[in-house]
């Protein structure tokens, strides 16, 4: 009994480390284990009309027979014929025939390939063994990495297996458990398995069905394997496609964007998009050996695109188009995108600029874009993919939230999978017919033009944060958003939905998820806390009414920015681009700590790491420049336009108690170190601090103490062991955002060298007409402060405050920006109120039913509908 009692007392605590967790692991009998790739097959089934579970006949048919668009036509239109019945006799009475879409998928850890009947979701036909109380799928090799089913004849499915280093062909009928399927062979014949030299990482089938392409990352090659799609046989053991193409230099992107060369729809009319420019990046990995990792087929031009985890190239091969004669791939010039890449997606041709509802001369679909996941950081780049364009391959400037300008702004997650969506977009259109665009005169269509309904061309991105996000490329409904549009006038009146007055649709920007009448506000009145006083700042004066205190001065908002607070004159301005300014609190605190710059391994020395004489704090692993530290020396020589020009330099504050032995000895016999007994208690009022003359990665050259009563030698002799410290700004306000943190552009020549001096990044110069270049976080009295997100000016201290203000001065001004323009996204692990962790692995858009399918390694198989953009099913 006693043992039981003790056990109960300790049990809950012990469960955690050994894994039999407090959050119970759900044991779902019908589950998928880490699905990682998807393909589709179509089955025509005839069932007994009186007993639908009785299947009379079933056969594999080409995928296009599972086209369900005919079901979506409105009542006013004559329905399209159901392609399922093309070339077939009428179904006999008492029977029902339908084409049913099946998803074929691989399970990464189980090493299996299986199927789910997407049309009949309750159907368990893909379960190969009803004796086993879970979905039983067909075993293939270890670590399946790729899957291919030919859409014109889906009799066979090819699977690449990373672990067993092979490509295997299996009967699709067996996977789907059709009635006339060949039996499962536990020992597949040798001719159904093609060994390859290294673990394949991806597999695709050519549009003609004559070849498989297998990425062999470690071998640095792509294997072209001839197959017979009718029999599934491997015709040969593969031809190596080498990846030795030489790319031209990284092309320069087009400079800026204007109404004439960019696609956007902004309302109200006075709003206009920010013009961005970006220089090509310094290439990474040019001399590396190729490591092909993922394969994508451009269906428009029949081009095989090969991403490379090591080289900054996207390799290209022209594929044959002759359905009758197998034509091997021929290499094309690779695209140089300056960084290694992972997943790739390409768009069909889209018009260059925004279209009026009636169409115009600009309706020609001429522009194509390529999206790729940057292998170095999981961001997504956008390249010009318009054949014949002078900037073909150039990485475009698309970001605008303080993150790199040449990357999509998609939050903190790492992009893992990309897919271009084309719901309702006219196939193979050289021009966009006006009747495919939303017409304001069509009330129903206009009412359906809501932010969450996707019609047109979009990029979907599955991210490691468990979201699928959408990026605008060409929105067929944009012509109904915000009201009338007339070229040149940008009329934004007459919107069907009165709340649709602030519209921000722009190519290659995340889609905004809701109607807006106002995108950006301050959520509460800015407040100030000054020593013992606090209160809200008056909107007319920017000052505290009750007592003199630092407040806000009227300013002029930068071009395209909005006045968030202040009447009649702006006191706080913010960047109005909805993708720039987040909802966050901004604090400006006098001589406050620079976040994360403190440490506990400082050593006060009279020599630097390279034996330079002086007063030093040495902390060789500190990485001071990464946190934005600056000494006076570091900012000398800056141009007057630089926000840090003339800055005094930050200050070092000793935050630790005296070393224990010193403390003990001083307590016995008070000596010179006794003055530091109360150091920790005095941190706010009378800190032990020194001016920083020069900041380096791992050491700080210190100047004079900032208060009386001690010298550097005094402090060094008392703190004769390692000391803890923090860094504060000096004679400046430390400006931090809850999302953006301490914004800066400080770096060092060698981030690994503790002696490397902190510098203002020369690659991030201030452009006086571009607020996004103002990466800084120190605000000074009576000087306008501007960063890429907000702008304001803090007034001077009251005359009663001496200059410089005493060390115990407290002055904080706080306001909160509220951006209601949230990105359209889905959390794929969230359905019907349940929340499970999600790790998207493979997104596949199927034009046949305008749905997006996701293989998610932890959340399972997910179906997403696009009008509106919603999770329709999650099967895990």
């Amino acid at each position, binding site marked *: *009994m*006693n*043992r*039981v*009692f*003790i*056990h109960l007392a300790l049990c809950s*605590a*012990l469960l*955690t*480390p*050994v*894994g039999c*967790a407090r959050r119970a*692991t759900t044991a779902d009998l019908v589950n998928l284990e*880490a699905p990682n790739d998807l393909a589709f097959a179509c089955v025509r089934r005839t069932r007994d009309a009186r007993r639908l579970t009785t299947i009379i006949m079933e056969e594999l048919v080409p995928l296009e027979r599972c086209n369900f668009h005919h079901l979506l036509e409105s009542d006013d239109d004559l329905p399209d014929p159901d392609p399922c019945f093309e070339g077939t006799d009428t179904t006999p009475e008492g029977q029902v025939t339908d084409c049913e879409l099946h998803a074929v998928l691989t399970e*990464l*850890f189980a090493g299996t390939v299986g199927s789910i009947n997407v049309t009949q979701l309750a159907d368990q036909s893909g379960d190969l063994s009803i004796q086993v109380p879970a979905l039983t799928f067909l075993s293939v*090799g*270890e*670590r399946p990495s790729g899957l291919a089913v030919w859409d014109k004849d889906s009799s066979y499915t090819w699977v690449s297996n990373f*672990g*067993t280093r092979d490509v295997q062909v299996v009967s699709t009928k067996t996977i789907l458990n059709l009635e006339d399927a060949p039996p499962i062979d536990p020992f597949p014949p040798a001719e159904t398995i093609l060994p390859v030299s290294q*673990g394949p*990482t991806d597999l695709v089938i050519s549009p003609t069905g004559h070849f498989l392409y297998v990425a062999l990352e470690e071998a640095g090659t792509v294997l072209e394997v001839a197959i017979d799609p009718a029999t599934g046989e491997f015709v040969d053991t593969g031809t190596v496609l080498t990846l030795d193409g030489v790319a031209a230099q990284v092309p320069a992107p087009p400079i800026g964007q204007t109404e004439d060369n960019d696609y956007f729809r902004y309302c109200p009319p006075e709003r206009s998009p920010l013009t961005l420019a970006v220089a090509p990046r310094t290439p990474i990995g040019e001399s590396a050996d190729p490591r092909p990792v993922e394969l994508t087929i451009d269906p428009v031009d029949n081009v095989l695109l090969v991403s490379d985890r090591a080289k900054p190239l996207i390799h290209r091969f022209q594929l044959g188009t002759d359905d009758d004669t197998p034509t091997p791939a021929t290499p094309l010039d690779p695209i140089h995108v300056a960084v290694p890449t992972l997943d790739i997606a390409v768009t069909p041709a889209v018009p260059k600029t925004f279209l009026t509802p009636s169409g115009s001369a600009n309706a020609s679909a001429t522009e194509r874009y390529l999206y790729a996941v940057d292998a*170095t*950081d*999981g961001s997504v780049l956008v390249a010009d993919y318009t054949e014949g364009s002078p900037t073909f391959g150039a990485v475009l400037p698309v970001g605008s939230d303080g993150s790199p300008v040449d990357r999509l702004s998609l939050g*903190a*997650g*790492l992009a893992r999978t990309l897919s271009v969506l084309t719901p309702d977009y006219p196939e193979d259109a050289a021009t966009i017919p006006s009747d495919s665009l939303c017409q304001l005169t069509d009330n129903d269509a206009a009412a359906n033009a809501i932010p969450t309904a996707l019609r047109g061309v979009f990029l979907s991105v599955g991210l*490691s*944060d*468990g979201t699928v996000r959408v990026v605008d490329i060409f929105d067929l409904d944009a012509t109904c958003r915000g009201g009338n549009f007339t070229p040149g006038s940008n009329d934004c009146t007459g919107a069907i939905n009165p709340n649709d007055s602030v519209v921000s649709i722009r190519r290659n920007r995340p889609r905004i998820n809701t109607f807006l009448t106002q995108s950006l506000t301050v959520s509460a009145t800015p407040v100030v806390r000054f020593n013992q006083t606090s209160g809200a700042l008056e909107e007319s004066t920017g000052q505290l009414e009750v007592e003199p205190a630092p407040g806000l001065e009227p300013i002029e908002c930068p071009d395209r920015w909005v006045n968030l607070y202040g009447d009649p004159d702006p006191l706080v301005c913010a960047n109005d681009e909805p993708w720039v300014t987040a909802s966050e609190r901004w604090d400006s605190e006098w001589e406050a700590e620079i*976040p*994360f710059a403190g*440490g*506990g*391994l400082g050593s006060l020395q009279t020599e630097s790491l390279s034996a330079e004489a002086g007063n030093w704090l040495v902390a060789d*692993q500190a*990485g001071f420049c*990464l*946190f934005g530290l600056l000494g006076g020396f570091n900012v000398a020589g800056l141009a007057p336009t630089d926000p840090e020009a003339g800055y005094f330099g930050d200050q070092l504050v000793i935050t*630790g108690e005296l*070393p*224990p*032995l010193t403390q*003990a000895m001083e307590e016995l016999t008070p000596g010179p170190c006794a003055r530091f007994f109360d150091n920790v208690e005095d941190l706010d009022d009378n800190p032990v601090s020194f001016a920083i003359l020069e900041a380096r990665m791992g050491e700080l050259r210190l100047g004079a103490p900032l208060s009386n009563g001690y010298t550097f030698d005094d402090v060094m002799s008392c703190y004769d*062991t*390692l000391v*803890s410290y923090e860094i504060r700004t000096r004679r400046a306000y430390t400006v931090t955002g809850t999302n953006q*943190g*301490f914004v800066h552009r400080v770096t060092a020549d060698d981030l690994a060298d503790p002696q490397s001096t902190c510098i203002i990044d020369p690659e991030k110069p201030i452009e006086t007409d571009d607020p996004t270049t103002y990466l800084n976080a120190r605000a000074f009295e009576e000087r306008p402060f501007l960063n890429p997100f907000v702008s304001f000016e803090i007034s001077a201290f009251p005359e009663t405050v001496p200059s410089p203000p005493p060390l115990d001065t407290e002055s904080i001004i706080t306001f909160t920006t509220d951006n209601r323009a949230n990105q359209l996204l889905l959390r794929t*692990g969230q359905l019907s109120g349940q929340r499970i*962790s*999600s*790790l998207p*692995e493979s997104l596949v858009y199927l034009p046949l039913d305008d749905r997006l399918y996701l293989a998610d*390694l*932890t959340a399972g198989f997910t179906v997403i509908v696009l009008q509106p953009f919603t999770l329709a099913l999650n099967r895990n």
Partner: protein
Amino acid sequence: MGLLGALRQAQRSTVVGLLVIGLWCGHGCVRDEGSNPPLGVMHFPIAATAYPPEAPELLYVASSNFDLLYNSGSVQSYDLEVLDTALKDVCGDVLQKTRCSVLPAEADLDRLRPSAVQTVGLVPGLQRSEVLIGSFADGIAITPDGARLYLPVRSDANLTFIDVQPATGLMRCSESAFGEPQRCTESFRSGLTTSTREVTLPTDPVAVVAGSLVTDFGLTVGDYVLMAHRGQSLSLLVDRLSPSDQRPILVDTIDGLASELVTVSLDPQTHTAWIPSALTARISRVQVAIAPSDNDTDSIANALSATLFDVGPLRTAGVDQGIDSREVKFDPRGNGRVYIVSRTPRALLIADQQTSDGNLQVHNVIPVGQGPSRLQLAELATDGATASRLFAFVSCFDSREVHIIDVDNEQSTTMGTGISGAFELVIDPVRNRLYVVDFRTSVIRSLDLGPLLACLDGAPPDPINGCTPSLLGLLGIPKAVQELQ
């Protein structure tokens, strides 16, 4: 009697009943000292460590006595060479390796009652030593010279330490001689002394890491121990500063860390300990400040003056949901990379140690099985031993697997399956073995890394088993989890 009265009556009855049970329990249970765990038997093994780490000869295993079947946990030391030979001899011809066990010759087979289908070999010299400790040990660490073991034991709410003869693996934690069966005495089970500083040891120790003050902090003497406490605290102890030191000395503690701490890892380069949390998206980071010295006197003074400094937690941003991390390991090549076992998502996170904004800079998220628990890193030879590549081994308790990940290529390579309670892992780079502590069935599984190494060497995968490490046999007899007794 009204409803209220009835309720009061019922409450009174309940209270009286509980009192009776309590008195009976106090009378009947306290005097029952329970039974010792049988010699040579692991019972819910939870932690293991090998010595010397680069060429292991001895394996130390801590059993937690999780179901309190016995009156104590235990620590056993095993001779790895004997184990390897015994598994070849006893299990070499057994087709189904899960049905083949080797046991120390001292084990009482009658008491263990192995299944009739289990092939069992009693092996002399397999077990070098065994001592009894408190129940609910939760970790184990050994000093670099192999002379002292440390275990956080939750039933004692303290650090247990055991003296070891490094060459033989014989242990001692009482007045008895090295190698004699013994129960650790009070001085070894709660034997900390405190320095002159006013610090007290927090409760609920869950993890421990030990190292040398000489190699890691530039002193001339001594070792250090970092112990994580589930309730948001970390303790720093120094030990063996002089030959007369018998007990570790508690020099500093820090609290206010993330809740539900699980393990602790120290990066000797930056002197920063990372402590993951099973309940929040924060990984606590604490710097260990010990000033170097080149003489014994100052070394001792500096060690006793050592402090812990909270450098702020890192938020596991960019993953869904990132609120349950289990273990952190640093890239041994000093390239600033760090590997984190996460349960939400179920993945190995590859990240940068350095960050400027408080967010963990995750580079890649590599999926693993369910219930990922522990992590080991090992550099394995490739291409005919002309090169090497770093692999991560992740135990997945719920899916009963060990996943093996090529972290340089950021690719999941293979996995061992059917390991019913995969938890702690130990890698033997000399014999190419992976020892998996199987908590659920109270055995150690010895796996041969040969198939994996052959694949890395360029050989084609085995047609049946691919590149998966193969099971050689079990140390111990698998024992199903029973009802509480």
